[in-house]
């Protein structure tokens, strides 16, 4: 049984100089057999294991992670959470996640620092204005809060934005989702890991999958660096490395893995109390609780697994940031990094069964998977437990690339992918 985190446990542990905190999760060796194995110990994978144990009564579950939990894209993203997607299928999926976010800290007894500070998307040309107005209407029809803002309202909501008509891409308006915001990315992985561990899930780190063993069209287990693990159900949540795992099973996916970069500045006093995203110039910025500006750049156009991106991508983003926020002109950037994102042709994820029995894929989240973490885990757990998708992720099946029933969020999703 895990000790409950509270103000009292904080005070109690202060007396022992915080040296006697209970371990948040064990460090087990893999058992010979599991009912289900999740490949990938990021937020989505850990959430999947958590909901499998919590809602579907599977107790003998393992999460295998080749590095350390939350060390991939979970720890590399810009932590933006929103659900203002255009299409009904996406709106259902992302708002399901947002609703879970709203009670997640309480549910996990772990402060994920979910902050509904609002996300504002800017329009810089007439097409943007039309698209954003259309999306606002679509969102409201789907019960998702959204308002369209004039240039003056944008300025009022975020005063440091340069709304002069003379800049290269002037701000013509914007949309605002007030329920949107940010969360502490590491805490999401750690909170789910702690919750899953409490229900008996084995979280096995430094354990890389080397092969998937099949008997005809049924999975039998995984060959890993820590030996063979027998299982009838494998849920792959490997983000940028999904194709690598798929190749082991002889499966083809419609994914391309590309570097996506982000960077943070030196910490400064509170200056921007919301998240501002700008599609046309591809720059988005928020401020972390430590005071750093968190800036997201775009993807490179080539396949790469190197977790490095090209310099000109960062340069382009910073050009746009400086034009929109002249106040940042003398700020220094502290760190820059890349993550490998798996992008689908329609910029929507895959949460699906495959042609191989017992093999499930949760991938293709591309540049925006963090926001969906709780919903993705919940729906993927449902899919694995029932061998059938949930109503909310039925549209995100792998077969849509054959049937042509794509969920085309490219450009429609309020941010350029």
């Amino acid at each position, binding site marked *: 049984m895990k000790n409950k985190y509270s103000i009292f446990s904080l005070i109690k542990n202060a007396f022992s100089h915080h040296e006697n905190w209970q371990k948040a999760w064990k460090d087990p060796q893999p058992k010979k057999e599991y009912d289900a194995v999740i490949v990938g110990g990021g937020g989505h994978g850990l959430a999947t294991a958590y909901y499998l144990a919590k809602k579907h009564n599977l107790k003998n579950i393992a999460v295998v992670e080749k590095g350390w939990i939350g060390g991939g894209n979970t720890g590399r993203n810009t932590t933006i959470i929103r659900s203002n997607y255009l299409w009904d299928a996406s709106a259902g999926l992302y708002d399901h996640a947002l609703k879970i976010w709203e009670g997640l800290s309480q549910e996990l007894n772990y402060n994920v620092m979910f902050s509904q500070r609002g996300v504002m998307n800017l329009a810089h040309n007439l097409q943007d204005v039309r698209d954003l107005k259309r999306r606002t209407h679509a969102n409201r029809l789907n019960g998702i809060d959204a308002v369209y803002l004039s240039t003056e309202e944008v300025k009022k909501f975020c005063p440091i934005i340069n709304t002069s008509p003379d800049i290269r891409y002037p701000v013509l308006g914007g949309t605002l989702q007030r329920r949107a915001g940010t969360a502490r990315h590491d805490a999401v992985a750690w909170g789910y890991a702690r919750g899953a561990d409490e229900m008996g899930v084995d979280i096995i780190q430094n354990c890389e999958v080397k092969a998937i063993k099949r008997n005809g069209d049924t999975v039998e287990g995984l060959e890993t660096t820590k030996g063979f693990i027998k299982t009838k159900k494998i849920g792959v949540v490997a983000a940028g490395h999904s194709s690598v795992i798929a190749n082991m099973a002889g499966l*083809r*996916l*419609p*994914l*391309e893995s590309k570097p996506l970069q982000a960077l943070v500045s030196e910490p400064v006093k509170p200056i921007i109390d919301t998240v501002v995203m700008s599609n046309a110039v591809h720059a988005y910025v928020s401020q972390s609780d430590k005071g750093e500006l968190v800036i997201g750049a775009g993807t490179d156009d080539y*396949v*790469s*697994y*190197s977790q490095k991106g090209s310099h000109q991508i960062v340069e382009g983003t910073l050009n746009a940031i400086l034009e929109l926020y002249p106040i940042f002109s003398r700020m220094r950037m502290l760190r820059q990094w890349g993550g490998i994102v798996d992008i689908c042709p329609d910029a929507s994820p895959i949460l699906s069964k495959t042609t191989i029995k017992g093999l499930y894929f949760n991938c293709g989240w591309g540049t925006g998977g963090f926001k969906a973490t709780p919903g993705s885990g919940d729906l993927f757990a449902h899919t694995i437990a029932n061998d059938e998708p949930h109503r909310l992720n039925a549209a995100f099946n792998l077969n849509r*690339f054959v049937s042509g029933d794509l969920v085309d969020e490219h450009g429609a999703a309020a941010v350029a992918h």
Partner: protein
Amino acid sequence: MFLINCPYCGERDQQEFKAGGEAHIERPKQPTELSDDEWAEYLFMRKNIKGVQFERWNHAHGCRKWFNMIRDTSNDEIKLVYKMGEKPPSE
């Protein structure tokens, strides 16, 4: 990967180039005969290799010609560049 050796122009900055995805995907000879599965395979499914991959690149801000490249996607090292229409080396 900062310099790319265009087979027509020589070494140029990477900024001048545009990646064009996986190379040697052959356009179906009889499009009307294709099943939905075969269309999906041709249009969407990609190898997305971690390691040595064959790619098409375009010298978009230079000679604007297309060419092929063999590149290691795990560390971005360029192994070989060759012209369109040339057979890919077997090794």
